[in-house]
């Protein structure tokens, strides 16, 4: 039986667009159309407001937590074209950096896998994507920009996990990677989706970011993309969802050939896709106000594991 474990009153005055839990699940950050970001301590099932961050001049679309080994760091992006990085110092949350190099609303922020260092990708309605890298010597963020990544705008970003195995013969681009514990890290990659109906995979090549693959199957704007966590399998997966009402799961063995598999065509636009921590369950939510869970069985067939909700009352939100 599924039930509500905890309900948190965010206290925002308007809709929230993002609610992110930090790495250990001890803090919750919410961002809202009321231009504010709130941080709650939700340890042990409680709810205590730790900070109410005001710094954006427009609705805040998304927040993202950095890995705690960098300290308590939160990034936010807003309609006001800014990306702000907030930091907790001596128990006080303050603005530590502000990035305002986009010409339009910034829709998505995502921190890279922590093994690569403190790196943030930002996707904007101006069609470009910025990659901010924290420079430990200067204490500031260096940035690189991919102009015109998606015409009309980039809606979503998701990083490739650091431990995705790569084909052994492909040694390109590996030479400049830092190593942890003697294991060379993979080339940095992320996936983005935008208003040009495409899903694109980007990879770092020397000091530039280049488009590695462009996946063209969706027939309308991409609303969300999610790279599945890696659990040491040779394959890698991305889920994408679109206003064409479809969710597609892209899979690859070698990072070169991506095979699309249409998970389902839903009754309504699909807004969000989200992988479970170990990448074996995909959560899908959309305009029909349902969240459905999908799992691949032993025969490689994806089935919905949350039951059909046809007979639930119309005025109730169900999963």
């Amino acid at each position, binding site marked *: *039986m599924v039930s509500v474990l905890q309900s948190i009153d965010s206290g925002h005055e308007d809709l*929230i667009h993002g609610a992110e839990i930090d790495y250990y*699940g001890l803090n919750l950050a919410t961002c809202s159309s009321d231009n504010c970001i709130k941080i709650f301590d939700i340890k042990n099932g409680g709810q205590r407001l730790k900070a109410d961050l005001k710094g954006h001049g427009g609705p805040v679309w998304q927040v993202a937590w950095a890995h705690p080994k960098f300290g*308590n760091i939160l990034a936010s992006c807003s309609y006001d074209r800014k990306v702000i990085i907030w930091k907790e110092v001596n128990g006080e949350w303050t603005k530590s950096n502000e990035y305002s190099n986009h010409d339009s609303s910034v829709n998505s922020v995502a921190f890279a896998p922590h093994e690569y260092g403190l790196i943030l990708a930002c996707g904007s309605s101006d069609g470009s994507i910025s990659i901010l890298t924290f420079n430990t010597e200067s204490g500031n963020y260096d940035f690189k920009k991919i102009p015109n990544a998606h015409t009309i705008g980039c809606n979503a970003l998701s990083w490739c996990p650091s431990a995705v195995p790569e084909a052994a013969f492909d040694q390109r681009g590996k030479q400049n990677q830092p190593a942890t514990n003697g294991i060379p890290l993979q080339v940095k990659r992320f996936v983005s989706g935008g208003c040009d109906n495409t899903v694109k995979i980007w990879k770092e090549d020397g000091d530039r970011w280049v488009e590695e693959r462009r996946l063209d199957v969706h027939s309308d704007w991409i609303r969300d993309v999610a790279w599945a966590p890696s659990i040491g399998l040779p394959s890698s997966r991305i889920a994408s969802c679109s206003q064409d009402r479809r969710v597609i799961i892209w899979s690859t063995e070698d990072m070169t050939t991506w095979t699309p598999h249409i998970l389902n065509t839903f009754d309504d636009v699909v807004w969000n896709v989200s992988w479970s921590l170990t990448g074996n369950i995909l959560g899908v939510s959309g305009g029909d106000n349902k969240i459905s869970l999908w799992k691949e069985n032993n025969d490689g067939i994806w089935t919905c594991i949350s039951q059909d909700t046809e007979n639930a009352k119309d005025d109730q939100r169900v999963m």
Partner: protein
Amino acid sequence: MSGNEENVCVVADKLSEMCGLTGKFITNELISVHGFQPVLSTSRDVPTKFANTSEVNVFHISQAFALDDSVLRGLVSESSSIFYNLQTAKDKTSEFYLHTSRSYRSAIRATLNKLREAIDDEDSNSDDVKKYENFVTIFYSIECSWHLCEFLLIDSSSISTVPNLLEWTKFHFPSPSQNAAEMLINLDRDVDVRSNYWVTVKGLILQGQIDIARALLKLHSSSETMTFQLAEKDLQSMPIFSSHGGLSLQKFRSQWSYWSTTLISKIDSGLYSTEPDLEDIMKLITGDKATWMEVCKDSNCWYEHFAGFLFFTQPSAKYFELGASVNSWLSQWASSKGSSGFTNLNHLERMVLAVLKNDMAEFIHSIQDIADNKWFVVHLTDLLVHCDQLRMSNEGDNTSLVIALRENLIYDYGAMLMSRGSLWEIGMDYLEFSSSEGLGAREILLQRIPIKNDLQATNVIAVARRHGLAAIEQDICRVMVKRSMSLHNYGNALEWAIRSRDNIYVTKVANVFLFHYCKTGKMLHKDLLAHVGAKMFISPRLLFLVKYFDFHRYFSSRALAQAAELLVNLLDSKIIPEFFWPSLLADAIPLLEHNEPIIPSKETYIIMHHLESNLIPFIEKKNRQRENINTDHGDDIELNLIDGYPDDLVQLLRLACARNLSRAMIIENTLIH
């Protein structure tokens, strides 16, 4: 207890009702849900129409989790060690599997006892009682069907199916034996006036307990009559089938058919008609359908009398032959109950049915619906796969299927435990024995175990080490460094940084120690610094910190010669942080100005060299930065440092060097002569 509850969670939220909702995974077991409206390129920077209309909530949704209940935790941990033994045992004999199965069952029975105690302890109306009563139903069903699987599938030495089934029935329907025992102990001559006398005797017959039934019949007040005597004779002469030794099956059958034909003719000729109860018993023994249907009317469930029926009709039946018998018995039973068969069976009855029909696919499917967070299906499937007794279909080889099934179940169970509070360590053990995905998942999930304090961090690290996940250890240390720093617990931060072996983190913490010294003239955490030992080589900054601390110890214990030697070595070492030049050179002044000259001329030149080539450029740089303070933040701490040193530090140093040099040269030159 099970099954078909809606797998749907209704979130009562006014806002989501109006605008819609979205959700995302937090952990494998937790989903966060909140009201949502998509942002489009046409979205404008204005409050939405939902602004200030109702509470804006975030909901955390999760599968109900029973296993962290205080009573069930014991079962979880005990079963995990049985599970672990099963995976790691070297000598896996059939006795070992039977022993393992019995250990699991005894763990379930212990849990049932604890649950019953817990129910007795609670106020009968409390919610806990209802919860525990529900658990009792669940775990009773589990034990009951596990027991069945044990002698039918796991115990390979068992060849006598029907006697085992009778034993199992006796165990789960104990009232005839209990009543009989009570009557026999009291040796009550008037036993037959008791209302339950015949019920008990028939109950014993229905469970094949002929000898005890005979003993009870002897207590009857009419036991000396002809009819009772006849019954005693007939029952005594009844042939009993035994799979070990005795009669061959063929011989038994001919004996039985002779004996029962005689009995039927006695019944038909009315020899038992004076005692209708005795007559019923004899009819049951001969397998008379109408009489069996009559007793089925009062039965609690379909399998209560099934074993007894087999005992009198097919005593030599083997497990794989039971399917047909079960079907015909079930339809007979259903028609006597006036029901249409399978539809009214409860979950346990359906589980027992699936096992007896040897329909393992159906059985495994139905036990997944039990609200025990899959405890039963995981452990039983694993055991059955180990002893190679799980057949999911009769066609072809299903080895890969059952192996995949086992791996998936263990994976899900392990991942669930790892995502649920304090049972995560147990979860690790399960994932270790699931699949290659399980090993990967272990690493991901272990990293996310919430660390709230040093003790928990140490605990997670110990587990990570045991499983060879060294990268996790390093990351946890880094997290602890950051946390300790933000709490100003620098000693702790240094310890964690050293454990992380990460030069950047160690340098950061060592800098705090050095800054603090520059500002206050005091060393932090001297005990700690005194015991860093060889680990100081992790980072040049730490090396410098420890060496500088040694210098202090020499100095304060008046070992001035060693202090001076170390100081000069440090000056030449190239590991001095730039900001520390003023402080380090200032330390030279008392040594230079000491009554007895300690620093020889050559070393004095070294000091003078660093004064000119390091300290002066540093001061100039800082002065420049101070002028530009409005344009550049710079490093506040470093800027403050220079304020602690008056401009005449350089003057003092130069003078001290000059004076010491003159004294040293006089002495040195004197010695030469």
